[in-house]
């Protein structure tokens, strides 16, 4: 009786997880294995893949060092820049803003997310192109300013595209913050600045960490923004990858780079979790 019930229970469990398990296997595990196999293969004479076992693709990785460095530099830089803009915004929304308008203001942060990132980035191509801001500058006598297709333009596009993703987790962590703590801090004679650094900031750190990790990880695979605002010159590893598949047709090398990129993401994620863990740890010490 008991065994029958257990069997039934197991069957139900299996039925519940089976579709997702199948999906994960066929469209995540299998593709990853295929990519790994390809990474040890050779480029066919006309391009594509041809079976082989060689480490040549991995040995060739240093030729993409610049793209890897750009990515490893610009992804966290972009995330931090996002943070600089996002934190005061989230703070204002959660702490300062009139509660009556809070919901509307928060929604307004999310709405841009609902329009095509492509179209919005295209709008920046126009704003930064010579008919946009440089044209306005020319009217006041500053000629021939070039903004488009520069690393600065790419960074701007990144901040623009990912700002909502940074604001939201910080806002959520600040909103949960118990206002009585702030009042207590003020009552105990703390100046607003020390209340901020002593209470608010530490308590919002989980949100900050989530935001920074999320944006950094998404940026590691970015393709569109550097492509459109960098003129094909500011290269992220994502762009190098697309190039290898859609132009030079070197599938094995592209696979090797993709595998390496995943390894980089895992390392970044582990570092982020380590830091988050430490931050969480110190926070507890502070509270107790």
């Amino acid at each position, binding site marked *: 009786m008991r065994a029958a019930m257990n069997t039934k229970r197991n069957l139900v469990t299996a039925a519940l997880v089976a579709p997702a398990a199948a999906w994960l296997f066929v469209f995540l595990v299998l593709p990853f294995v295929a990519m790994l196999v390809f990474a040890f293969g050779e480029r066919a004479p006309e391009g*594509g893949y041809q079976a082989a076992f060689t480490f040549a693709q991995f040995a060739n990785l240093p030729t993409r060092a610049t793209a890897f460095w750009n990515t490893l530099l610009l992804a966290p830089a972009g995330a931090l820049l996002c943070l600089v803009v996002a934190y005061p915004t989230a703070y204002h929304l959660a702490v300062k803003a009139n509660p009556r308008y809070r919901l509307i203001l928060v929604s307004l942060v999310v709405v841009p997310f609902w329009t095509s990132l492509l179209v919005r980035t295209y709008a920046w191509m126009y704003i930064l192109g010579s008919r946009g801001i440089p044209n306005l500058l020319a009217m006041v006598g500053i000629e021939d300013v070039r903004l488009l*297709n520069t690393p600065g333009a790419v960074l701007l596009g990144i901040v623009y595209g990912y700002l909502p993703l940074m604001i939201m987790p910080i806002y959520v962590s600040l909103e949960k913050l118990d206002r009585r703590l702030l009042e207590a801090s003020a009552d105990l004679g703390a100046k607003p600045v020390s209340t901020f650094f002593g209470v608010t900031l530490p308590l919002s750190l989980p949100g900050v960490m989530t935001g920074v990790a999320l944006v950094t990880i998404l940026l590691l695979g970015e393709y569109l923004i550097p492509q459109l605002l960098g*003129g094909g010159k500011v290269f992220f590893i994502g762009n190098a990858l697309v190039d290898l598949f859609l132009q030079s047709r070197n599938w094995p090398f592209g696979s090797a780079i993709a595998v390496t990129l995943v390894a980089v993401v895992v390392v970044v994620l582990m570092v982020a979790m380590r830091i988050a863990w430490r931050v969480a740890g110190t926070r507890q010490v502070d509270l107790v």
Partner: protein
Amino acid sequence: MTKSHRENAPITADRLTDELMRLKRGSVTRRHFLGVTGLGLATAVLARQPGLFNSTAFAEDLGTQMSIATWPNYHDPATFEAFKAATGVAVEVNVFGSNEEMLAKLQAGGTGWDLFVPTNYTISTYAKLGLIDELDLSKLPNYDPSTENPRFTNEGIIDGKTYAVPKNWGTTGIAVNSDKIKKPVTSWKDFFEVAITEADGRAMVHDYQLTTIGNALVSLGYSFNSIKPEELAKAEEVLLKVKPHLYAINSDYQPAMRATDAWMTMCWTNDGAQLNRDMPEIQFVLGKDGGEIWSDFYAIPKSAANKPAGYALLNYLMTPENAVKEHVANGAPTTDSRVLKLLPAEVTSNKIVYPDEAALTPLEFGAAVTLTDPGRAELMARFKAA
């Protein structure tokens, strides 16, 4: 009797009877008959009206949409609108910046193109890889090999089989905005020098290995088509040196040139003609030291979903009356003597479109080997990722 190429012209009763007799005798195919008399198009339209011509003995069903893969700014949009009006088939235009990109798409499978525009040096590879069909010329009654200039059209024919028919020819030169750049640019050597000096931050190269690497090779005095590793290594040095100074690596340079975001670019004849027509300060020059002469073709991918529409559009574009409008709009020189006769004098006397023979002498046609050479492919990818 000569073949009529005026598909849209009303056909005389005499000719109709004559063609009908030939059809009966079997000296022409049914398709030729339908094409020449214009009945093909009419039946194609009518065939889609239920109840009128249900018999499949008439022209094939063209469907309602098709897709063409081509190059930036390469067609008169009015052409596709006219084609839609005539056949009911809407044409989706996909734009690519290099032959390699088109090849990559076709190799990965499932492009959805019914017609595309490869360049001369790629056709033998496409045929070898089985990616394109041998053309059924009976479906292209308006194409006439005898009026085509063989200098530009021979690469479409492999072992006597026609795999591609010519669109137009052209050159790869340099477009310079003379308002912004005062130093004369007359060679690829000049191009790469000016790109890091007067045009610092304002020069563009193609996102295309053939021309970007080829022209860097030419600037060093090597062949445009070289695949020698030591020469490619020198070309890579030139490209890596110029890269930080470039405005962009992009084969669609017209928007940037028109907005004067960019002042100088590698440029194809047709773009040069269009830019110069609208902005006379943009000049188009051919490298004294060499460069590319090319011809583009139309071909039908083996994987095309709507081949009847692909053939119908191709036949439409091969009609001199339609082709001439395309040439006036896009500014590329024609390979077809029938079209040449119809072109207005201001086009045929335009030195950008029809340069003197002497200016063409140093130019080279792209070689098939450059398309698949792994060294050139990897060099281009490295250059972009650097």
